């Protein structure tokens, strides 16, 4: 049982948080790259943003025990909200234009 208990301690401590954040970040990144659907890309971005916020909060707690990290995480939430609103509006517009959700078709800037 001690092995399990120490595993539980590790998971709920700083390193557990960091491991979860890293997992979220990589999963989000994979979603961003591999998803065809533009909304899927957006979901991946949200995951990555959450991972970042999580890191800010947990490092702030263990390093300084001050609320500055939480403030930055709060700003990340705000910005993510704004980004989601604008991105979804763009996606709707894009869908109306191309009748498709494939992000790879948004390539007018290529030439």
């Amino acid at each position: 049982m001690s092995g399990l208990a120490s595993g539980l301690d590790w998971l709920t401590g700083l390193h557990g948080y960091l491991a979860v954040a890293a997992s979220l970040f990589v999963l989000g990144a994979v979603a961003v790259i591999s998803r065809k659907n533009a909304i899927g890309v957006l979901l991946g971005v949200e995951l990555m943003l959450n991972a970042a916020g999580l890191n800010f909060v947990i490092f702030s707690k263990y390093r300084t025990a001050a609320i500055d990290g939480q403030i930055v995480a709060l700003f990340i939430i705000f910005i993510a909200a704004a980004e989601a609103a604008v991105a979804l509006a763009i996606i709707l517009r894009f869908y109306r234009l191309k009748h498709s959700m494939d992000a790879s078709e948004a390539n007018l800037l290529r030439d």
Partner: protein
Amino acid sequence: MAQQALWIPLLPLMAFVIQVFFGKKLPRQGDFVSVLAIFGSFLLAAPIFFRLVTTGDVSDSLSYTWMSLPVGFKGSGTGHPPVNFEIVIGVLVNNLTAIMLFMVTLCSFLIHLFSTGYMHGEPRYHLFFAYISLFSAAMLGLVISDNLLTFFICWELMGLCSYLLIGFYYDRPSAINASLKAFMTTRVGDVLFFLGITGLFYVFKTSNFTQVYQLVHNEALHELMIIGFPALTFIAFMVMLGTVGKSAQFPLHVWLPDAMEGPTPVSALIHAATMVAAGVFLLIRMYPVLEAGHMLPVVGYVGAITAFLAAMLAIVQNDIKKVLAYSTISQLGYMVMGVGVGAFAAAFLHLVTHACFKACLFLCSGSVIHAVHTQDMREMGGLRSKMPITFLAMFVSTLAISGVPFFSGFVSKDRILAGALGYGMEHSQHMLIPILGFAAAGITAFYMFRLIYMTFFGHARDEHKHHHAHEQPAPMVIPLIILASLSLAIWFAGPTGIESVDQILPVHWYDDAMESVQKSMGIVEEHSEVHHTAHSLAMVFSLVIAGLGIGLSTLMYLKAVFNPATWQKMFMPLYTVLVNLYYFDYLYMKILIQKGLLNFNSMLAAFDDRVVDRIFVDGWGRATLVVRSVVGKFDDIVVDRLMVDGTGYGTATAGWLVRRFQTGQAQQYLALMLIALGLFTLKFVL
């Protein structure tokens, strides 16, 4: 007053501009614009003149800096204030100017008035008035100029106007030739005159008359040399040559008789008020320089020879205007001679009196020509009864020019001859001058009366033309009357010695005016005993000689005691020479121009062709070609290919490389970003 004087030439100038642009559209083709403009000038000039007559002296001036040329620095090196060579132009009103302004505006106005009748119905009527307005403006501008620069500008303007007016009937080849001849001949004088002005600037650093008068007595200036001659002599000679060209003096007199191709009012304008008077006026203005340059005897000889030779020529002419033309040359010779012998005031007086009676003579001849439609005196005769006013005016003028007492010509000519005689008695080596002068006086009387007798007396030689002749309308006759009345002596006569007469006459005004002029110019007129003797002698001589001339003329052409044809045979060689105008035209045309100038021209053309064109221009071209190809290769290979194209290719290649990554796929960018992040973590892994 100078401000007022400035407007005198400006008014006709404005009339010229209006006439050129709008003349055709105005009622009566705008002749009233020119006439009113010159009348306005006359009204402006009259107060100045009357102020001179009443107060005896007028003087005023106005000056503007025309341009200021930096020519150096005070001291050496920079930082010093620049030294400017200022060209100042302005208006000078003195007694000479006042008299000239009055005379020129009056004559011009009367000629303008006459032209409205004479030119009536002619083509290019408005242009004629534009030209004579410009002509008057130029002459008036010349008169008020206080420096030789604007003087020369107006001088050249008059040359242009004479060219335009002599060639006014440009559909006649003879008119074109005459205008070209006038222009080219005066151009010879003008170029030399301009050299003189350049020399004047070199010596005096100014061309302002007043300053020149003051500086001319500076001994240091007499030391200066121009191309091996004393500078002042050079200037004086060149100025004299300017006059020779403009006033048709020997040997550049050939253009003036041909100038008769122009309309008769133009002849009157050229001969009386403007063009030829300008030359004499120049001599009078530049008198101190001529004196300082020891050029006066030369001037005297030129004048005397011209007076005599031209008078001789006038005898054999049958064209009424040609006679008058030669008489003008002769009279101008008198004036030039007067200046040359130092009878400065007399010469200027003759300029004024001559302007009046010569204008009258020309206008009368115009009136006659207008009536009979010919210029040949052999087709006239007996016109006295048909044209009484014209006859009377012309007769009065003829008396004046012949030097008959109580007419203006007597007063002025007598003074010139007196001056010449005095000069000859003082310097006996120059006795030829008065001899030629007196001879010319006699001949003048002879040919002028010949003209009168052939035109107005005797029987009508051409019945048809005589029948249609009639007196001219008022605008043409009134000027004749005014000008004829000005030919009377009373306007110009000095004191007669009879007290009751002297009280009425405007005596002294001229002598008073001239005295202050001579003082301002620094001229001292000698009143030696010789001159008094000469004066009395000259009066007797001139009376006798004029009487002889008139008498001979009367016997030959009125009473037919002598037959002119017999005399012609008797003096056949002389007659041939005279009819051929001393072969001057032949000399100039055949020898000077065709043999000399044209050969010289072709030589210059050959030089231009072989040396300048082939060697310099073409050679330079070839040299440039070689340099061009070398520079072109360098430009092509190094600059264009290596640098310009190289930069382009480099940029294009770099762009091509970068473009591989720019697919426009947001997800690809993110993938690249992740790879970069992975590489970033290597720092911790390793």
